[in-house]
């Protein structure tokens, strides 16, 4: 089931060189550990570069977006079984 969320969230991430790797995020007052970044892509909204991450916590797939201009993170979508 695909659920649209579109919610600003808090994310813990490692920035190394030009690479960004989210490692956990907080959603619904719960800390979700990221087991795997399954895919990344990027886009622009005006001058802002938006970096997208498809991530897995082992159960669900989440789509996160980092606004590289404002340094804000959003949870966009959740894909879960059922």
């Amino acid at each position, binding site marked *: 089931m695909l659920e649209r969320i579109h919610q600003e969230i808090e994310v813990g991430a490692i920035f190394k060189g030009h690479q960004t790797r989210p490692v956990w995020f907080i959603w619904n007052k719960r800390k979700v550990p990221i087991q795997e970044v*399954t895919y990344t892509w*990027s886009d*622009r*909204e*005006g001058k802002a570069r938006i970096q*997208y991450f498809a991530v897995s916590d082992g159960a669900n*797939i989440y789509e996160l977006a980092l606004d590289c201009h404002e340094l804000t993170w*959003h949870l966009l979508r959740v*894909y879960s079984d059922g």
Partner: protein
Amino acid sequence: MPERHILHIDMDAFFASVEQAANPRLRGKPVIVGGNRSYRSVVATASYEARAFGVKTGMPLGEGLRLCPQAILIPGDTAKYADTARRIFTLLNDLSPAVEVFSIDEAFIDLTHVHGPLSPPAPPMGLPRRPTFGGCPGSVADPVEAAYLMKAMIRHHFKLTASVGIGPNKLIAKLASGLKKPDGLVWIPQAQVQAALENLPVDELCGIGPRTKGHLLNLGVTTCGGLAQIPIRLLHQKFGIIWGDLLHKMSQGVSESPVVPYTQAPEAKSMGHSHTLNHDARDREDIETTIQMLAEKVGRRLRRDKMQGKVVTLVVRLAGFETFVRQEVQPAPIDSGAAITQAAMAIFDDMGWRGRPVRMLGVSAGALTARGVRQLELFEEERGERRLIEALDRIRDKYGERAIAPATLAYSQVWDDHYALKGHGRLTPRAVIRESPPEADPLLRGES
């Protein structure tokens, strides 16, 4: 002169495969990429698991879901596919400077002047290194080695498979890539071209569609071998000199079309957008809003490329798929959304619509010319309008395409539907409540 080596790379079920790469839970399952289930769009791509049930690209979404009700429907995400394609084409560009982007999931690569070996022996872990050309002067790169390398790199970096065809020209390379899918690699060298074409149905060749196939069938021709037997004079009579000559050459497997690197691609002859409505529109206001949205997008693209259009074309598809295409030459080239809307609505009003339900609308601008030096608007009203357009463009440049829109559009369902499907504007909308006069705003003063 060495034989040309042209590669055609065709990503397998591209959009669906990207979704399966991004979401491991979709792998091995039937996936359809299209619009939202409530939208009446078409199947953009189906995974091979869905294709096994007869789902095909371009068929109405409802039909696809009837054939494969268990399919998982994923709304398409243009940004995800476009960025993946851009990165794949960049990888291919490391292999050869001559990469022609044929579509979002297809490219031609000319290896004729690329020297091998293409890469050092595989590094530990069996991962391919990025190739370098010019590694061994004098020896032409082995096209099969190059194809394997490309496939391995794409699989490694994107978890995607591609089918590759190799031939002495683009026609044969494209034919070859379609012979074994998915994850195929087929080489048809010059010496084997005739044998490969002999019994091949004519419509397997790129460029021969249903209409030409029908005309050829009237001549008793069903295969390329049969087409090669038709005297060229007869082809000239039936299809004209240019198309007759081309058909004759195609039947021999000859194509002189060069691989044109995307940096040298010719400028667009027209720019347009279309939109399938969420429900059949019977209301003139809904139709006008949709046309306005499309016209604003066309105008924005024209201005970004510093172009103007002299011809506006409107496409109207009715609920029964009856389609009308009308165009009108404008008194002067235009590039504003408002002017394009006005021209398209004038065409619409002349069409004799009579309230019939409309399924899809398309607006395009053609006969493009460079805007070049800034034109002087004669009247104060025109100058004001131009300043407004330029200010709006600066806002969109800075904050994104959905940041600002005419009020008639900003609160319309069609605007929301369109951008929801395109994946834009997904982050928090940026809005500023203005309390200062416009002249105090650096954006409106022309500073960004």
